[in-house]
């Protein structure tokens, strides 16, 4: 029974891992955004627009300008896609916001990607020429994978998901940090996933980053009227 309780506690801690106790530094962040992707089949994708995140609303809003004008709202367990203020798609989602780079950055948790709030076991820490890397391991016997975080100058520079065999499944790089107010934000995020069908690559770029912008003309961008669609 003790093992059962331990397992249950472990599961609970993981499930509720998003309940961060970190100090919030800012409540809002907005940015121009560019998302480029290359899929394993060789096709490519480009999206340009703006992204808005508000802690109080707990919502991420993408105002996409290219390839098509579209507003996407990630809030609670929903993703709403609006075109010309008309509901285009309504999808189910969950908990993405709590692990978003925006929320982690505003709460000062980006340095460890919030993993120190999840009860992952901090494993080996090693120094290299570029900084420090630390292993975060699921607290189970024979964990099939680990997460490795690379840090330099007290900032996260990379995160990787690695199988116990040493095979890398996914890695992300956080580059070109920009100091804005009291936070440093990586304006360039690179991602590589290795799959059976090939390699997936993604480059996300942020520019014109603003914090705590409460000007009247911008409020509707953070909080579009979606009540009718929820």
């Amino acid at each position: 029974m003790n093992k059962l309780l331990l397992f249950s506690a472990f599961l609970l801690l993981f499930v509720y891992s998003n309940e961060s106790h970190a100090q919030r530094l800012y409540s809002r962040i907005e940015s121009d955004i560019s998302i480029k992707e290359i899929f394993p089949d060789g096709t490519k994708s480009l999206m340009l627009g703006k992204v808005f995140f508000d802690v109080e609303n707990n919502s991420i809003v993408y105002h996409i300008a290219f390839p098509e004008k579209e507003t996407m709202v990630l809030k609670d367990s929903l993703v709403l896609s609006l075109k010309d203020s008309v509901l285009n798609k309504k999808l189910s989602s969950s908990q993405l916001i709590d692990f978003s780079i925006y929320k982690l950055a505003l709460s000062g948790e980006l340095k460890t990607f919030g993993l120190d709030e999840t009860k992952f076991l901090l494993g080996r820490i090693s120094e290299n020429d570029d900084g420090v890397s630390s292993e975060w391991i699921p607290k189970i016997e024979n964990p099939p994978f680990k997460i490795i975080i690379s840090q330099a100058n007290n900032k996260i520079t990379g995160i990787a998901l690695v199988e116990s065999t040493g095979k890398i499944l996914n890695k992300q790089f956080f580059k070109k940090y920009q100091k804005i107010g009291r936070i440093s934000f990586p304006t360039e995020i690179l991602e590589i996933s290795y799959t059976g069908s090939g390699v997936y690559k993604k480059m996300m770029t942020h520019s014109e980053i603003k914090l705590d912008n409460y000007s009247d003309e911008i409020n509707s961008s953070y909080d579009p009227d979606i009540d009718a669609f929820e």
Partner: protein
Amino acid sequence: MKNHTLKAIAAFLALNILFTTGVSAANGIENSFESNESVFDLEEDFYADFAELDQLEKEVKENGLVDYDALLQSNPDLLSDLNLSNLRTINSAEATEGFSFDDMDWGAFAWGLLCCPVGFFVVAINGNKTSDQKASFWIGWGVGVVLNILYVAAVGNPINDF
């Protein structure tokens, strides 16, 4: 009734333990992995692979964020191999719309149920997972939450027993 519920939940969690740990010997956690060296090496051709998209971005911005149709008319060569599945780009969860029981991917379901934070990386934000796999992950996560709420309701919060 309470005992029956407790037994059912306990049996399910016991199965979870077996499924998760694989009835294995207690090996050291850190010893099972290889070295971390070179994990964060970035392939030399990474940026070069994005050259076409960089050019397209430049073109679009110089033209005041024209939409796809307008750019298609002005410069069709740039758009010849673009994938317009934009929803896939920014919505990692993708759709559960139209999802049925037959579409369930049980591996992804297990990730959501048993190890949500890591499953988040393996499935939810993996651009190469299908919408059905991602939906299965989130369903697994939801089932895990419900089971834990039931468990806590039945026996109290086990964290307090530590």
